């Protein structure tokens, strides 16, 4: 059964001037125990998409979807407070800049204990307090923090960014979530720390069968860990498939360009040669092209591209393009 099944989720940003379609009909299906990557350039709407899954956005944003199923339950039929309750019970989220996501004036220990479910403890309040503390320590051990007593009494600013992210993961694990959404968890982190965080996420995925939705702009870095990848461009769905499909046989011109833009060790590059790029830049939100938003930059673009393409499925390899590279392979 699909854990999460979202079809054609659109997000509009209402400004004083006009309405902007920030995310345009993006679909996402997650299976249980899947390690999914969601990649796209900065500003492609991946973070907004993830926050919309939580209904964390404020009044400026309006979310609409054709289908939003969580474990087979249709959440769109429920009032928004109920939806939030169901989602926050089973889904946890970790953010980029972990230090800013922890309350600076409260100790780490308190913030972890706060996330614990009260019904798991029994006895008088002092017994429960003790159990809470033990549970918090256990969570810290799970994410690989051994010096728990120092950590619990520390404030966020006293820890490094990587440690804060581990604490965030510990807080996320407190609810035993079925799905963990990681929104660029390793941004602004050193490479060794990045590796540790990814390994931790991967081990949680394998040992606890926890699904992970990993959002990142670094395609190369996360492809080592993910089972499947979804690619977004400028708020539109581009392509989805297994990591291998995406890397070996990219159907969409954007994915193809994205892959060829990254330097490879096997390919000998002469000194100071330019890497392959698409012409132009990402469109700004105020001036989005109609139809396929890659249109003006796309090498395959033709007249037909001013109408948005339908998503087509080729044995689990989804692509949204009129003139895909499917026949090339």
């Amino acid at each position, binding site marked *: 059964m699909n854990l999460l099944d979202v079809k054609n989720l659109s997000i509009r940003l209402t400004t004083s001037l006009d309405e902007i379609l920030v995310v345009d009909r993006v679909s996402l299906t997650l299976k249980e125990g899947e390690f999914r990557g969601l990649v796209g350039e900065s500003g492609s709407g991946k973070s907004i998409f993830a*926050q919309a899954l*939580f209904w*964390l956005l404020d009044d400026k944003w309006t979310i609409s979807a054709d289908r939003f199923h969580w474990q087979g339950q249709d959440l769109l039929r429920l009032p928004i407070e109920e939806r*939030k*309750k169901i989602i*926050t*019970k089973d889904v*946890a*989220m970790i*953010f980029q*800049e972990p230090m*800013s*996501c*922890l*309350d*600076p*004036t*409260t100790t780490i220990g308190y913030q972890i204990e*706060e*996330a614990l479910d009260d019904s798991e403890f029994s006895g008088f309040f002092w017994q429960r307090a003790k159990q809470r503390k033990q549970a918090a320590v256990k969570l810290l051990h799970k994410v690989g923090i051994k010096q728990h007593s*120092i950590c619990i009494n*520390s*404030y966020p*600013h*006293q*820890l490094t960014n990587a440690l804060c992210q581990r604490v*965030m993961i510990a*807080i996320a694990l407190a*609810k035993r979530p079925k799905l963990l959404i990681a929104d660029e968890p390793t941004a602004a982190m050193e490479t060794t720390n990045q590796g540790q965080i990814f390994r931790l996420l991967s081990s949680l995925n394998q040992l606890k069968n926890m699904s992970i939705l990993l959002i990142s702009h670094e395609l190369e870095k996360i492809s080592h860990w993910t089972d499947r990848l979804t690619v977004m461009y400028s708020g539109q769905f581009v392509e989805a498939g297994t990591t291998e499909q995406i890397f070996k046989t990219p159907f969409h011109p954007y994915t193809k360009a994205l892959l060829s833009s990254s330097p490879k060790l096997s390919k000998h590059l002469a000194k100071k040669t330019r890497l392959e790029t698409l012409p132009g830049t990402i469109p700004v939100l105020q001036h989005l092209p109609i139809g396929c938003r890659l249109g003006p930059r796309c090498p395959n673009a033709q007249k037909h591209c001013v109408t948005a393409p339908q998503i087509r499925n080729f044995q689990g390899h989804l692509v949204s393009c009129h003139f895909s590279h499917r026949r090339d392979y």
Partner: protein
Amino acid sequence: MLYFTLRRLYLLSFTLLMLSIVSFSLSYLFPGDIIVNLSGITNPTLEQRIELNALYKMDDSVFHQYFAYIKQVVNGNLGISMFNNAPIVDEMNTYLPATIELCVTALFIATIFGVTLGFIAAIFHNKWIDKIILAFAMIGYSIPAFWLALILIVIFSILLSWFPSSGQINLLFDVKEVTSFIFIDIWFSDIDDKWLAFQDALRHIFLPAITVAVTPMTIFIRLSRTSMLNVLDSNYIKAARAKGLSNVKIIYHHGIRNALVQIIRQMGMHFAHLVSVVMIAEVVFDWQGIGSWLINSIFQRDYTAIQGGLIAMATFTFLINIFADILYVTLNPIERYKRHGA
């Protein structure tokens, strides 16, 4: 923490040094004889003049004179009043406590109501309650204190006769002056109906305290509203929402303290503003405090009193500021603890 306190005290000593230089130079800048300005003895006899010249080292350089003056100030000799020949220090002992009482009460009212209303406005951002509170803050900020004082007297003393319009306590209560803090005096006095006296003193302080509190309160409303809005917009509140915490819990555990930390310093800054309003309110309500005393001294060209009042008021304001700073540090762990390994 200790380091921080020491640094604040260091700052205090420098500010006091500057203050004393200003106060000393006033005796040169005021018209008239320098020795008269310093001591407050108008028309001194020859013997007195010789004595004072020796005391303030008038024959030495200005530098020595300054240190002689500091020595006198430190020993509690601020001269005598030119107006009624009473020692300035004694005058201040009677008047300063009343002012401190009024200031602290007003600050208390302003903080409690200002911060609460500000937080409520922020929590219900862009709702009608937010707009009402903002409108109230705007009106309160625009009303001049002396006018508000008169209006309050007209409504509450004359029309409704709920609160007395002047003084600190009814003369029927024979409270002996010990500390000059009226509430403390009532507590330690041996009169029979302490509770009645206490109530009476409360009724007397009500109108002046409200008058003084309105302007700072409106400032606090705006400060705390902005600060709470910033906090509610921050990542850690978003993360707390993702944790599934309820709104009440989020505001109680994560909102209030973070918002308070941001405003406490600014509240200390606005205390100076409050003190200047206190001086006006004291005159209107005939409050026997240092503000009305100082304004009277200015009218009477009582230079020694002006100097002394300046030192007292400024020191009081600095102390409150430093107190706010220390409170800020105790509330804010970012200032208190160093990073591990840093």
